[in-house]
C-alpha cells in the first residue's frame, strides 16, 4: 500500500488543487491494486439483461478487501468504498444514481482510467450536451426528467454551437454502433457513470461537487517583496523576544484543566439528573437556569475552579456579590462590570459611559471610588479625556487581578459560599422507567 507521506516543506506549499491531486493518486494506487488478478478483489461475470458483463465485483467483497488491506473496521472500509464510488473510480451496476458502496451482494465495476477524475480534460457543458444528444439520437424519450431539463437548457444557451454538437453526437453514435454488443453496453455504463458523478441529479451526492473556488492561490508567483520581508523580520524579532513558557509548565496546565473539568464534561461523565438529549427531559436545563434559588452542587463546585468561571456564570456572580456586599467591597466588581460594558458596547455610547464611570469610580471623592495604584489611576484618568474602547484596560486588569488573587479565595472560604454549598441540590438520576411514566405513557 503506497500512502504518500508528505513531509513538511518537501513539496513546499500545496495549493488546494495539488493536495487534491495527491489524494487522487493515493486512491488510484488502491484501485489499481484492487484489480490485480492475483491479489485483488474477487470478481466474476454477471448477466445484465441479455448481456454478459465481465469483471463485476460484489460490494461486500470489495469492502472485505479494503478491510484487510487497510486494517480498519468494516464501517470505515465501507466509508472508503463509498468515497471510491463518489469520486467515480467504481460505479454501481444497479441503482446507478446512488453513489454509495453497499455492504451486500450488489454489483460494482471499476471505471476505465479514461474517465478518472485526474484526467486532464474538464467535463465541459458542450461535452455533456453531446452525450445527451447522442442518447436522444439512439432512442428518443430515453432521457430522465432531470436530463431532459438539462438538455433543454443547454440547447438554449449553446444554441450557436448546436450544429457542431449534433454532428459530434452523430459521429459518436455511428462509432458506437460499430462496436460489438457487450463492448457497447459496457462503454454505455461507464459513460453514464461518468456523467452521474460530474453532473449529479438532484439528491445524488458526488464527491466532485465542490465549494466556491478559493480565490488566492498561494502557489502563484511567489515574489516576496522587500517590504514583506521587513515585516516578517519584525514579526520574528518580536516573536523571539516574547516571553514563552516551558512545555512542562504549559502542558501540565492543560492536563490540570482537563482533570479539573473531567466530571463536568457530559461526554465523559453523566449529567445529573440526565442528559436532555438522551432522555428528552429538560430538567438539566431547568435546574441550571440563570435565576434559580438553589443551584446544583456541580454548578457550585464549578464556581470554585476560577474567578473567570464564577463571574461567567451569572448566578455565581450574584452569589459573589452577596459576599462582597457583606465585606463592603463591591465597588471592584462593579467597576469591572462597567469596564466590560464599555469595552463591548456600541461605538456611540463610549463617551457617555466613560463619563459615568469616571464620576462613579475614579473621580476624587467618587461614591464608589476604587482603590488602585497611583500610576494606573493617573494614566486612566488622563486617557478618559479622549475615551476609546480600551481606555480602562489597565485599570480593569489591575482590579481583576486583585479580585483573583485575594477576594476570590476569601470568598471560597467564606460563610456565604459554604451556605450556598449546603443549599445546593443534588438531583437524583432519572431512571428510564420514571421518564417513561412522566411522558404520559
Amino acid at each position, binding site marked *: 500500500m503506497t*500512502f504518500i507521506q508528505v513531509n513538511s516543506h518537501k513539496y513546499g506549499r500545496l495549493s488546494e488543487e495539488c493536495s487534491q491531486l495527491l489524494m487522487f493518486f493515493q486512491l488510484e494506487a488502491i484501485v489499481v491494486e484492487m484489480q490485480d488478478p492475483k491479489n485483488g478483489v474477487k470478481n466474476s461475470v454477471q448477466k445484465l439483461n441479455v448481456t454478459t458483463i465481465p469483471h463485476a465485483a460484489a460490494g461486500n467483497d470489495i469492502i472485505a478487501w479494503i478491510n484487510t488491506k487497510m486494517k480498519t473496521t468494516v464501517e470505515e472500509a465501507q466509508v472508503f468504498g463509498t468515497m471510491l464510488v463518489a469520486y467515480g473510480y467504481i460505479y454501481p451496476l444497479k441503482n446507478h444514481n446512488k453513489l454509495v458502496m453497499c455492504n451486500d451482494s450488489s454489483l460494482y465495476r471499476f471505471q476505465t482510467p479514461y474517465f478518472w477524475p485526474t484526467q486532464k480534460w474538464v467535463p465541459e457543458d458542450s461535452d455533456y450536451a453531446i452525450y445527451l444528444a447522442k442518447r436522444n439520437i439512439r432512442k428518443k424519450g430515453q432521457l430522465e426528467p432531470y436530463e431532459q431539463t438539462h438538455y433543454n437548457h443547454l440547447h438554449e444557451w449553446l444554441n450557436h454551437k448546436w450544429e457542431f454538437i449534433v454532428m459530434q453526437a452523430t459521429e459518436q453514435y455511428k462509432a458506437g454502433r460499430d462496436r460489438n454488443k457487450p463492448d457497447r453496453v459496457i462503454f454505455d455504463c461507464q459513460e453514464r457513470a461518468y456523467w452521474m458523478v460530474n453532473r449529479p441529479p438532484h439528491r445524488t451526492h458526488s464527491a466532485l461537487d465542490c465549494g466556491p473556488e478559493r480565490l488566492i492561490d498561494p502557489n502563484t508567483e511567489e515574489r516576496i517583496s522587500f517590504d514583506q520581508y521587513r*515585516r516578517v*523580520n519584525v514579526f520574528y524579532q518580536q516573536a523571539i523576544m*516574547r516571553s514563552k513558557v516551558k*512545555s512542562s509548565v504549559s502542558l501540565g496546565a492543560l492536563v490540570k484543566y482537563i482533570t479539573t473539568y473531567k466530571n463536568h464534561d457530559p*461526554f465523559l461523565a453523566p449529567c445529573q439528573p440526565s442528559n436532555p438529549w438522551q432522555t428528552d427531559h429538560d430538567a438539566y436545563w431547568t435546574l441550571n437556569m440563570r435565576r434559580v434559588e438553589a443551584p446544583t452542587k456541580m454548578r457550585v463546585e464549578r464556581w470554585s475552579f476560577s474567578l473567570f468561571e464564577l463571574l461567567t456564570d451569572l448566578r455565581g456572580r450574584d452569589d459573589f456579590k452577596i459576599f462582597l456586599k457583606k465585606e463592603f467591597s463591591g465597588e471592584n466588581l462593579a467597576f469591572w462590570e462597567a469596564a466590560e460594558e464599555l469595552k463591548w458596547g456600541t461605538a456611540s455610547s463610549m463617551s457617555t459611559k466613560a463619563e459615568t464611570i469616571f464620576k462613579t469610580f475614579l473621580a476624587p471623592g467618587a461614591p464608589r471610588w476604587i482603590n488602585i495604584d497611583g500610576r494606573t489611576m493617573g494614566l486612566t484618568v488622563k486617557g478618559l479625556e479622549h475615551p476609546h474602547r480600551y481606555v480602562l484596560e489597565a485599570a480593569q486588569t489591575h482590579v481583576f487581578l486583585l479580585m483573583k488573587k485575594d477576594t476570590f479565595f476569601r470568598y471560597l472560604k467564606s460563610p456565604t459560599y459554604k451556605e450556598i454549598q449546603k443549599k445546593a441540590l443534588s438531583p437524583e438520576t432519572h431512571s428510564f422507567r420514571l421518564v417513561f411514566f412522566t411522558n404520559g405513557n
Partner: protein
Amino acid sequence: MSQDPLEGCRISAGKKSAVSLGKALHPPNLLVVVEGTCGACVAASPVSAPEGSCSYNVAHHHLCVCVRVCMAWQGLQKGETLASLKQESENLRRKLEEERGKLTDVELHQVAEKVETVAALSIKTRRVLKGHGNKVLSMDWCKDKRRLVSSSQDGKVIVWDAFTLNKEHGITLPCTWVMACAYAPSGCAVACGGLDNKCSVVPLSLDRNENVTAKKKSVAMHTNYVSGCSFTNSDMQLLTSSGDGTCALWDVESGQLLQSFHGHTADVLSLDLAPSETGNTFVSGGCDMKANVWDMRSGQNIQSFDNHQSDINCVKYYPSGDAFASASDDATCRFYDLRADREVAVYQKDSIIFGASSVDFSLSGRLLFAGYNDYTINVWDVLKGTRVSVLFGHENRVSRVRVSPDGTALCSASWDNTLRVSRT
C-alpha cells in the same frame, strides 16, 4: 535628522486616522495608526525597541495611541538588498525555532502517559434536522443550549429549537452559499454572510408572523466572500473573516469598521475568539496554511503557526484559551500550545486521507471532534493523540461540528442537507 520620526506630526482624533508626517521620513510613507493602549500606560509587556523595530509610544500627545511606523514602506536602506533581507529572515526563523526548542523539555504524549485512558464512547444521533434544500454550510449554537442557527447553499438561514425540532425563523438571503452564520450572545439576533461579500445581522422577533428578513441589516463589507463570523462578548461587535485575506472587527450599530487585521497572504477561512478572562485575542486560519493569533486592540499579529501542508479549514480554541486546534485539507488536525508557542500534537491516521473541515473540543478539552470530507466525524483523545471513536451517518461531507455551550451534545452540519445532534 531627528531621532524621533514623529516629530512635527499631527495625530487627528478618531478611530482610523491618517497621520501626516514630519520631514524625517520619505513622502509616500504610510503610517499605520493603531487604536489601542499606549505602551506607557499598560505596563504589561514591554514594547522594547531594538534597532530597526518599529513601535513608538506617543506619550506626549493627549490621545493615547500606539503608532507603528512601518519602516517597510521606506525604500531599501543602504546596504540592504532583497537577498540580504531574505537571509536575515531565514536566520531569524532559525533563531526562533532555537528559542522554542530550548523550552521544549517534554512532549505532550509523555505528559499524557500519567493520565488514564478515555472509556469507550458510544455516541448516538438523537436529532436529525431536515429542512434545508441544499448543502448546510455552517451552524452555531445559541447560549440557551438548545437553539441553533444554520445556513445553507440555497441562501436560507434557519433558526431551530433543536430539542423540539421546531423551525422558529427562516431568513432568505439574496445570495447562495451562505458560508458563515453566528448566534448573538443575547439570543436576540443572528449574523450571516457569504458570497454576497457582506455579513448581515438579523434581529429575531418573538412574533412568528413577522418577516425577520425585512429587518436584516448589513454590517460588514468585504471585497470578497465572507467565510466566517462571530459576535464578541456582546451583540454590539462582530468579527468577520473573508476570502479577501483579511479579518475585521465591526460595530454592529453603525456598521463602522473598528479594526482590520492584515497578515494572511490568501483567503482566510475560519476564525475563533479566545474564551479567556481578558478576551482580547482571536485566532484565524487560511489558505496560506497559516494559523495566526491576533490582538483585537492593536490589530497586530502576535503569533503565527505554519505547520499545516494545505489549506486550514477551521480553527478552534481550547476551553482554557491557552491552546487551539486546527483542521486542514492535508487530512490532519493539529494542536498548538500558545504559551510555549509551538505545535504539540498532530492527529492523523494512515487510513484517513480526506481533508478535515471542522473541529471542536468537548467541555473539558479532553476530546476533539473533527468532521471530514469522507462523511465521517472522528473523535480524538487530545492528550494521547489516539482516535477514540468514529461517527457515521452523514451522506455527504461534514461541513461543521460544534459542541453545545454546556457540552451536552454535538451538532454536525453536512452537505447532505441535514444537521445531526448527537450525544453519548
